[in-house]
């Protein structure tokens, strides 16, 4: 199913793999960790795109590159990032699926649960 998916969402699947793994991975190692039937070259292309965006580092290992997730403030110079936020931060907030707002009671509740989890 994933093989029919566009490169864009494939990119975040592969970045997920890089973040999950603590060590650099070659394209074939990434391929092993994806539960999808993908071509080696597709994985290589996507890794190359991540590297180009500054979301991955790469080092030469033998004949292939090994990629690891990289995030540093310097990589995201202002001109590389989207400038949609001034005019549409409201829209950004409404599009965010990861969280909703919290009141102070809920914040207390969450802190207590975090302590329990730790």
């Amino acid at each position, binding site marked *: *199913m*994933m093989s029919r*998916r*566009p*490169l*864009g*969402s494939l*990119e*975040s*699947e592969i*970045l*997920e793999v890089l*973040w*999950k793994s*603590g060590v650099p991975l070659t394209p074939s190692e990434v391929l092993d960790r994806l539960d999808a039937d993908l071509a080696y070259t597709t994985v290589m292309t*996507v890794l190359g*795109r*991540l590297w180009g*965006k500054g*979301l991955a580092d790469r080092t030469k290992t033998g004949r292939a590159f090994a990629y690891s*997730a990289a*995030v540093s*403030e310097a990589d*995201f110079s*202002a001109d590389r*990032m*989207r*400038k*949609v*936020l001034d005019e*549409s*931060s409201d*829209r*950004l*907030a*409404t*599009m*965010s*699926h*990861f*969280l*909703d*707002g*919290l*009141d102070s009671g*809920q*914040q207390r*509740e*969450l*802190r207590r*649960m*975090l302590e*329990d*989890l*730790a």
Partner: protein
Amino acid sequence: MSAHFLLPFLLVIVCLGSAWFLARFLAPSVGVVTLTVSVMLAFCTTILMFVQLGGAGISEVAFVSDALGWCRALYGGDHGAPLFLGVVTTLVLGLIAARMGRHVHRVFQDRNAFGDVDGVEVVRSSQPVAFAVPGPRGGVVISSSLLFALDRHERSVVLAHENAHLRHRHHLYIHLVETCAKGLPLLRPFARKVKYLTERWADESAAERVGSRDLVATTIARVALLPSSEMRAHSLSIGGGNVVTRVEALVAPLPVTPVRVTLFGCSVVITAVLGLILQLHHLVDFVTHAGHL
């Protein structure tokens, strides 16, 4: 107004009520599908009821009846609904169509704003935000403040969560139920529930990917507690409880769906389909009768 207009409607209310109740015991993925199907069936049934009422009422007007060649003698001047009801329902139908049209238009506008997202994109923002962008290319937008606040495990949770949204096409369910709810505001709580359940679905899916429900719970709680300048201001107004209940659900044991609940679920869907068929039957009946010369 005769009872046969209302019977399918009652069936649908039973179906919606049970789907709401069932969702508590179902795995989030099953809950999303069950509720979405129920909402759509409820929407179709209600709209069909309006169409029939409108048609029946309007056809009371001699001019309309004559113009369409309907046999007035056959009905004895009574088509099942008074004229005023016909006019009112027709106006309501127009209003529903307008509201839904506006909503769809807005959805497409939002889509255009992030339509060029291709892959993972980092956005400079003080709001700790991440969201999936479905589309021909698709991708995930993450704000820099979220990225730098998390370690790599938590980052992979965020991505796994957003990837689940993309992989399972959650936006389709959400757009469907939200459009229905725009037309019929009574469906709004169901749309909210579907939205919440897609989040739960993505949470559980992420937990499977990273191999730990606790890690997902911790990440969600931590992200929600990150300071954000703008969002706090209007955060109180947003129907909260969402994040807290999501974390609670992740800490609690995984919901399993017992057989009798599944059977009950099937009967709910069958009830709803029956309701819709009954309604369609009425409409076909009405149209064929009306077409009689």
